[in-house]
């Protein structure tokens, strides 16, 4: 068992090494493509300009349908057969990006190996204390990112996701590490498996959603200010394309979070007799749920779509992080499973 635990740690450190390189390459990609975008702007080519004007065109095209842009301001220009190029095609992406994605995948496999060996060594699910939860939540977050790549090209989020994963792994391995201990009776429940797993899934989706919302804000700033700012921003999809992508990712997260809340209540009933008791952890799960319900409403409310709803998504994800770190460590409550 001890050797397995050691392997698991070696795998975590290796994954961190590989992720660091991926992070550097993703960042290099962003900075190089900003140069490319600037060159393009200087040369007066259409690349950057097209990227900015496209959402406007899309909105105009749908506006006819009385949907006021509805949510159909899509990732594709829909003016009759105009362009076949999709907005999410990587504009000016560099070679670095491909290598970075490959390395992310390699890092992720190592990371996954670390989680599995930890679980096998512990003879239970590897998410029974904060260290393990952090390890598993990040593998799910990174996995979600890689999975989303199969569906949508969001490689421009690579620097954000790999940076975030790296930082989280660094913090959990140095500050939250605990040796394997047997599961205390309070955690011996099938609901632990379900509840925590789905919470991690939700966290993964919210992380990506928040990344997209941050990009969206940068993008709409850049479009509004005309000032140079961060140049790579001009190579991203338009703000409204980012927004609708963020929305789709966040609602998946929201469904998982709703499930987490319900599963948590069922488990609380099994363990403590009441399904809801406003315990600190329950309070924060509720707050996060309410914030994202607010976000979904904001997306459908005139005057709130756009920047404001993006801020809500970011605040919502910050609350998720707060719930995992500060609430776990410093708030008093029944959920004292940090293992620290």
């Amino acid at each position, binding site marked *: 068992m001890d050797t397995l635990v050691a392997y698991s740690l070696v795998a975590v450190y290796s994954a961190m090494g590989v992720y660091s390189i991926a992070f550097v390459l993703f960042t290099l990609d962003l900075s190089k493509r900003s140069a490319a975008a600037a060159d393009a702007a200087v040369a007066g080519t259409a690349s950057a300009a097209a990227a900015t004007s496209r959402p406007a065109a899309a909105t105009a095209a749908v506006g006819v*349908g009385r949907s006021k842009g*509805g949510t159909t301001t899509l990732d594709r220009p829909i003016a009759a057969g105009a362009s076949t190029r999709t907005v999410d095609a990587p504009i000016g992406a560099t070679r670095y990006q491909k290598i970075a994605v490959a390395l992310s995948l390699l890092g992720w496999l190592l990371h996954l190996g670390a989680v599995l060996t930890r679980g096998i060594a512990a003879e239970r699910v590897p998410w029974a204390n904060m260290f393990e939860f952090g390890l598993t939540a990040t593998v799910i977050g990174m996995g979600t990112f890689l999975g989303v790549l199969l569906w949508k090209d969001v490689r421009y989020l690579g620097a954000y996701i790999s940076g975030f994963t790296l930082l989280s792994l660094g913090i959990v391995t140095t500050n939250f590490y605990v040796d394997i201990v047997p599961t205390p009776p309070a955690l011996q429940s099938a609901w632990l498996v379900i509840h925590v797993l789905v919470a991690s899934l939700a966290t993964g989706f919210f992380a990506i959603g928040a990344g997209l919302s941050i990009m969206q804000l940068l993008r709409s700033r850049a479009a509004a200010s005309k000032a140079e700012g961060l140049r790579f921003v001009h190579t991203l999809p338009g703000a409204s394309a980012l927004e609708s992508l963020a929305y789709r990712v966040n609602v998946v997260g929201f469904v998982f979070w709703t499930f987490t809340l319900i599963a948590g209540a069922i488990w609380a009933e099994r363990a403590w007799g009441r399904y809801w*008791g406003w315990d600190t952890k329950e309070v924060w799960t509720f707050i996060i749920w309410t914030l994202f*319900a607010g976000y979904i409403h904001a997306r459908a409310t*005139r005057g709130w779509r756009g920047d404001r709803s993006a801020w*809500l998504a970011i605040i919502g994800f910050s609350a998720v992080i707060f719930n995992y770190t500060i609430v776990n460590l410093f708030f008093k409550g029944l959920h004292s499973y940090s293992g620290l």
Partner: protein
Amino acid sequence: MEPLRPSDHIDSEAPIAQPALGAVGWLRFAWRQLTSMRTALVLLLLLAIAAIPGSLVPQRSADPNGVVQYRRNNPELFEVLDALQVFDTYTSVWFSAIYLLLFVSLIGCIIPRTLHHARALRSAPPKTPARLGRLVGYRATDAPATVEQALDAAHAELRRRRYRVARYGDSLSAERGYLRETGNLIFHMALVGVLATIGFAGGFGYNGQKVLVEDRVFVNQLSSYDSFKPGRFFDDTRLDAFGVRLDEFTPEYGLDTTTGRVQPLDFEAAVTVIANGKEYERVLKVNEPIDIGGTRMYLLGNGFAPVVTVRNADGDVVFREPIPFLPQDSNLTSLGVVKVPDGLRAELGMIGFFYPSALPLDSGALTSIYPEPDQPVLTLNAFTGDLGLDDGVARNAYALDTDDLTQVTGGDTGTDSIVLGVGQSAALPDGLGSVEFSELRRFVSVDFYHDPTQIGVLVSALLILGGLIVSLFVPRRRLWVVASPTDAGVRLEYAGLARGDDPGLEAAVYDFADSHSQRIARTVEA
């Protein structure tokens, strides 16, 4: 028919400037504001913010001792916060006001929407727009068929895809995804369902705590509970008749050889339930409550209950009770109180520590090194004087108020504390009598819950989840097919329109057009 939406919804027409308002106009205006998207949104965010204070300070409902402690540590701040009901955040006036307003808004929002949707379900899709060219996924193709053949094929294909179809001239108008709005309405109604269930059924529940010592029987009546919280509509007759006896409590511990830390592995209480004149043996564990005819029993804690016997100067037994000692650390060093009001020359109170595996420290004090009774030792400090049990004020069985008492052993009294192993006894000072540690038993602390809201809330919660999934992921979309005769056959135009978030619309139009062409080809061949 469009789903009905508040006027500030992104899909609604911008409201027209209001003409001068009369009283009724103002009322209508106020109501429209209350049921607007913006109000719902702001109230949701307010609710999130208002929930925060309750996680920062202890709550009376969940952690009453924490509140007492808070008061002791911050007496001035406590007064202010208490006046603001922060220690009862979730039942406070301000928290309640926010969620009640939110639910008024919600009900005001869903009733008209439900009526509207019921009508929409029975009405035909809207007329085909005059020009499809600028809608989503527009495309035009030619097919070698008649208008009738083409439209029949389109009709069949649309029905197969579960569109509702209407024919207007030489065009078909189709709509699908009414389920999206149905799901949305179910979701919002189920939210009301949760609140209503708790509001109505919640009052009939109760919950109570009991410390149950081995071989003792608990009878489910009000006076048996150590503490009891009735719902608003509770009365004694709601307590089902049953009894529970704790037969044996068996913990299992593991020792982590590297850290030396003791880990609980399993807790198991063998109990006998006595109901309807029969006895049933059951096992009670953490996370595995026992259901006794709608009342559930939960294992929350455990500890040791040394049986203490006190004899008077003549050697007659005046007191013999198992005393639950409350665990203070993970090795079950435990604290307990013995009160003997009668039978001796003076009222006697004792505060004591129990160590299941006692080890003397260098200082001479004892500590427990393992949570199992390998070397059980009981130490007692005795007090005499007025225990205050006769003045009718309820007293905490686990605390001894020593203000009116005189210490007679331990501390500065000059007489040593009483230290006893199992079966040992010691004389009390001043010829009062003697005290004996007669026997060691265990206790469990259990919670009994009777909660009639569980089913209703669970059903509502599942409807919330189901409604949410349906309303977020079922696309609601319109599709049109316009056929016009040409020399070679028929010219077909297709286009779609999304109602709400629908990333797959364009692909859906293309896919439909392809299947339609194939279907036409098949019909023409046949």
